[in-house]
């Protein structure tokens, strides 16, 4: 077992997931089984291998660079449009439950 129940709780915390008790049991099993399979990567000696940094072949990358543009490529969304999908907004801001307890 690579991962313990404690690890599952810790990772869920990092990922902002609550997870039910059932899900914790399930993921403990699934993650261990997947990570066991992933272990076969260790059969390979990669000490001399560079990690992949660009998916496009070298030489093509330069084409994707451009000069900075002051205004941006697209105008910002108008305020009401930007807020239109918000679960809770007051017309000016997104609203969320209170952050500071007192």
């Amino acid at each position: 077992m690579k991962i313990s129940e404690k690890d599952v709780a810790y990772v869920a915390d990092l990922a902002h997931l609550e997870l039910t008790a059932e899900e914790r049991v399930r993921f403990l099993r699934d993650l261990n089984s997947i990570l066991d399979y992933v272990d076969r990567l260790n059969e390979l000696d990669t000490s001399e291998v560079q990690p992949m940094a660009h998916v496009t072949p070298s030489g093509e990358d330069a084409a994707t660079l451009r000069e900075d543009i002051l205004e941006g490529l697209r105008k910002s969304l108008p305020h009401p449009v930007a807020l239109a999908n918000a679960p809770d907004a007051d017309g000016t801001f997104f609203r969320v439950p209170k952050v500071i307890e007192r």
Partner: protein
Amino acid sequence: MDPQSLTIDATRAAIQERRTKATALAEDFYQRIENQDPLIGSYLTLTRERALAKAEEIDALAARGEKLPPLGGVPVAIKDVLVTRGVRTTAGSKILGNYVPPYDCTTVARMETAGAVVLGKLNCDEFAMGSSNENSAWRPVRNPRDMSRVPGGSSGGSAAAVAANMAVATLGSDTGGSIRQPASFCGVVGLMPTYGRVSRYGLIAFASSLDRIGPLAKTVTDAALVLRAIAGRDPMDSTSVDVPVPDYVAELEKPVRGLKLGVPKEYFGEGLDDEVRKAVEAAIQKLSKLGCEIVPISLLHTKYAIPAYYIVATAEASSNLARFDGVRYGFRASDAHSLSEMYRRTRDQGFGAEVKRRIMLGTYALSAGYYDAYYLKAQKVRTLLAQDFAAAFNQVDAIVTPTAPTAAFKLGEKVDDPLAMYLADIFTVTANLAGIPGISVPCGETKKKLPIGLQILGKHFDEGTILRVGNAVEQN
């Protein structure tokens, strides 16, 4: 008009020559969707107003005798991971159940500029994570060829809609096989272009170093026509590359004689279904008879592709999906008393099991103390896989393999075993990891009449050659 005969060119010609109207054709397709789709489940949202407005525009052009654009009046549909202005876009997830994007993705905008009539948005696995379409938060999709079976995934709706003539062509996305594997399962053509060939502006991101957008269609020519419409540099996507877009239709008309085709032994080993093997070998034989030189090759690191893929893909997903927090758009849990509780409950209630599993795996792989062992290791193995392909392409013009190890499996067959589900992508993830293009074309059927797909992989930006080989398989 027989819907099966409606390729892109046939459709466009019928409207151009005023044998039918784009508006009437769109209504025909909506009628067929109404009749068939309750059973199949490929559509999530219909965009009738938008479709008819475009169709009227095309009819007006035809009435004035003007030349129609390349996709003029052609009924198409779009995987629901591509955002559409004013049209609900869910990515197959409850967390985006009420999301109405304020802009169009580049690929849909380009399809419409080319005259396509967008009928609606297509079902898929949640956030494109899955190989069977059973991870859709809304409903599974059934394979039109056998309703007890899955259509493949994650672009299951995109493949099923084409197979059942509920669209002439569709757009899907492919992160580990999500265009090619469902195309194979449903007996249609599916093309994943080179990384950088097609703009991803407006694609709801799953794994940014792997995601591609591409067409599913009835014929290789149709796939070429859609690719030509959507390919090319887009200033809104800095990963799209300024490489000239050739006339893909002209490319596929070139002869295949003299092409060198690599057959990698690693793709024909254990786990490959016998009927699939026979059909693929027969297709290779056919290509040999057409004058292709068949070259046995080895892609040594193939067996490390799935483990490397599931680390890279989940790590990137855990980061990309951090944006879904219930603040700016989408679903928000209503029972939270603090901000942090709101985040957790929103994500808990909004995401399905597979998405949470992958976020967990990816978060773990990136967490302090494990980065080197997992993510860095996987990115190094990825280099080895890319080097395998680079070496092979010094020897051959394209590589031919099965698209998937089996034909379509039954609904429910693999839902309880995530690893078994991941292995459905064993022959497709390699091309995503290496950035190269791939196409799946039908190459036969099993005894149970289930379609089998041949995968053709090509060099970076050499879609022309794989389309040409695919066309030869299709025409002979």
